């Protein structure tokens, strides 16, 4: 790979603990041998990856990132307030933790919330990359080469964290790239909810190449919500991967509203018997946005269950892609897996791709998949209008109603109201443009 500034020298110049520098350097050397993916690969089909130009971005310097120990963002601002009560707060700017706090009673119970670059190496080295390492591609390697920090959450055995841990990500800087990382390790029998909110500066060209790793121990329950409201020229290429132990439970929700091109690859591997994974998503693109989702429900162990419901809308000339795979491995008998993707196409210039896939290597399983792409039903519009509802209000009600079953299942109920408002505004903007 040539003609860009993501070099080994730039990777090592970021500094930090020796183990992290060494890890970055190894990734940077590997990166030099890789080619960027193209849309001829199935996992990138319909994507905008061919438009990706690494020369448009450069990595940050150590000076730009600032001192890893610096506390430069007290509190969390208006976004944190919308999350309601919380047990902990991590503020991440351009991939580096600039503030973190944790309730004293959870500190006493052994819960850790810290920045990857400043945590003790023992706590983190054994976990970092253990989950995401199973999904390598050039962007994962690029991420590892410039990983400058990120949030680390460790919940010890049997500890229940009742209120959410809130992680606020902010990215800025025209022509810059940032590499946020979130690593959640929930030990056996623990419970935790992690809410991540991603935003970036508007009108600047920025690449966010992020990774979320969720390690869900035996009989642990992790609820993860990510809400992305990136600026209109942000490119986001994100990987979220979870490994689930015996009787573990993952409830994961993704909300995508922003970005120019925003891709999220969500993978859930059910390693232990009795593990359960629920993956939800809501996405709504307007203007020229593209939201791109790739999902993987990977059933390794028997008697595991997974459910997926992804719902999206597109308007103006926005596009979306959903491509999902359920894989049932040979030993994974008595598995139940479902996959459902529903799309509303609100204008003629918009479009949605929906590609559900099954790969079943066991014989005693129950699997189903469903996908729909279409405009708002005329009969529904007529029904509402026959009551006196104005056409634009009818459309808004139907779109909000379409997303309602996902909103109702969000593990952080306080989020539903601002998200409904955001969807409301997107549908409203459609009518402003028309009139």
């Amino acid at each position: 790979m040539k003609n860009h500034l993501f070099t080994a020298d730039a990777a090592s110049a970021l500094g930090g603990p020796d183990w992290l520098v060494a890890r970055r350097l190894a990734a940077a050397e590997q990166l030099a041998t890789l080619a960027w993916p193209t849309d001829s690969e199935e996992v990138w089909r319909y994507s905008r990856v061919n438009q990706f130009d690494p020369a448009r971005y450069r990595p940050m310097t150590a000076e730009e990132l600032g001192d890893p120990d610096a506390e430069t963002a007290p509190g969390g601002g208006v976004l944190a307030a919308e999350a309601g009560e919380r047990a902990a707060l991590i503020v991440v700017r351009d991939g580096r933790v600039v503030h973190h706090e944790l309730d004293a009673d959870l500190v006493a119970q052994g819960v850790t919330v810290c920045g990857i670059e400043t945590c003790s190496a023992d706590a983190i080295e054994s976990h970092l990359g253990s989950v995401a390492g199973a999904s390598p591609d050039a962007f994962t390697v690029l991420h590892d080469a410039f990983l400058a920090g990120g949030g680390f959450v460790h919940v010890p055995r049997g500890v229940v964290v009742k209120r959410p841990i809130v992680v606020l990500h902010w990215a800025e800087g025209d022509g810059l790239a940032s590499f946020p990382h979130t690593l959640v390790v929930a030990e056996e029998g623990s419970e935790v909810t992690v809410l991540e909110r991603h935003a970036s500066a508007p009108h600047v060209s920025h690449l966010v190449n992020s990774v979320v790793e969720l390690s869900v121990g035996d009989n642990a329950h992790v609820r993860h919500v990510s809400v992305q409201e990136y600026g209109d020229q942000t490119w986001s290429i994100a990987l979220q991967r979870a490994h689930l132990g015996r009787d573990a439970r993952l409830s994961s929700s993704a909300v995508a509203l922003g970005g120019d091109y925003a891709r999220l690859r969500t993978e859930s591997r059910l390693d232990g018997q009795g593990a359960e994974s629920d993956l939800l998503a809501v996405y709504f693109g307007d203007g020229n946005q593209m939201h791109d989702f790739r999902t993987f429900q990977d059933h390794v162990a028997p008697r595991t269950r997974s459910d997926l419901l992804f719902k999206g809308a597109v308007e103006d000339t926005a596009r979306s892609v959903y491509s999902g795979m359920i894989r049932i491995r040979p030993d994974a008998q008595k598995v139940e897996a479902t996959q459902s993707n529903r799309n509303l196409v609100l204008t003629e210039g918009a479009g949605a791709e929906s590609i559900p896939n099954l790969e079943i290597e066991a014989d005693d399983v129950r699997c189903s998949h469903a996908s729909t792409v279409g405009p708002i039903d005329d009969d529904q519009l007529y029904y509402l209008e026959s009551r006196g509802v104005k056409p634009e209000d009818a459309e808004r009600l139907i779109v909000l109603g379409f997303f309602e079953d996902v909103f109702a299942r969000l593990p952080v109920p306080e989020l539903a109201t601002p998200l409904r408002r955001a969807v409301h505004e997107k549908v409203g903007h459609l009518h402003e443009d028309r009139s």
Partner: protein
Amino acid sequence: MSVLKITNLRASVEGTEILRGVDLEVSSGEVHALMGPNGSGKSTLSHVLMGRSDYTVTDGSVTIDGEELLGLPTWERARRGLFLTHQYPVEVAGVRIVDLVDAATDHGIDEARVQTEAGRLAVRDEFLARGVNVEFSGGEQKRTETLQLAVLEPRFAILDEIDSGLDVDALRVVSRRIEAMTEETGLGVLAITHYARLLTELRPDRVHVFMGGRVVTSGGPELADELEAVGYDGLAERLGFAVPKPVSAEVTEDPFATPGF
């Protein structure tokens, strides 16, 4: 006192004329029954009145107190006081009845009003919490159609086969509520049906027989009795013509289709 007046209404679908000169006049507080065989165009009439876009009106007029409704979009007709209870109300996921009536009135109705009406119509709370019509039984659909009617207080209601899918008890509850509205708010009713049993619960002031896309004869409640005795064929014979062939495709769509009634 208001008057819904339909004059020489003609409408077609994809070039086929379904309504062939309909004349009707309903005043506040009156109950009119419109009875006709399957395929006579009864349901088409209800949708043409409401302004559904699949139909092309070729002639005639529909007014409330002299104001022309044809040419107005559906929602404006509703706001001028016209209400349709749908024969097959469509499911709208995630949109509760209270959301619907709130939007229909630009936030003019509070939830308590919906609760009160739900009580009168024996609609259980779970049906208010769900998206409208989502997994409702036929009976629940018609009760909640009536609930919306009661809450929105229109001047005229077109009941499109409100008796289909209703058991006797539910039919009674719904009929009593509509009858009360004719007294309380002066609601005028045009009840489209092919079952005489509706007319034992919802007693009409006038009965109109609808065949071949128009009203062929009108009379008092005794006309429904005659129809029950001799059927559409017998009635057509008395009037000196044969029952016209179906003009619309309702026949194949209607799961309750029976010859006559």
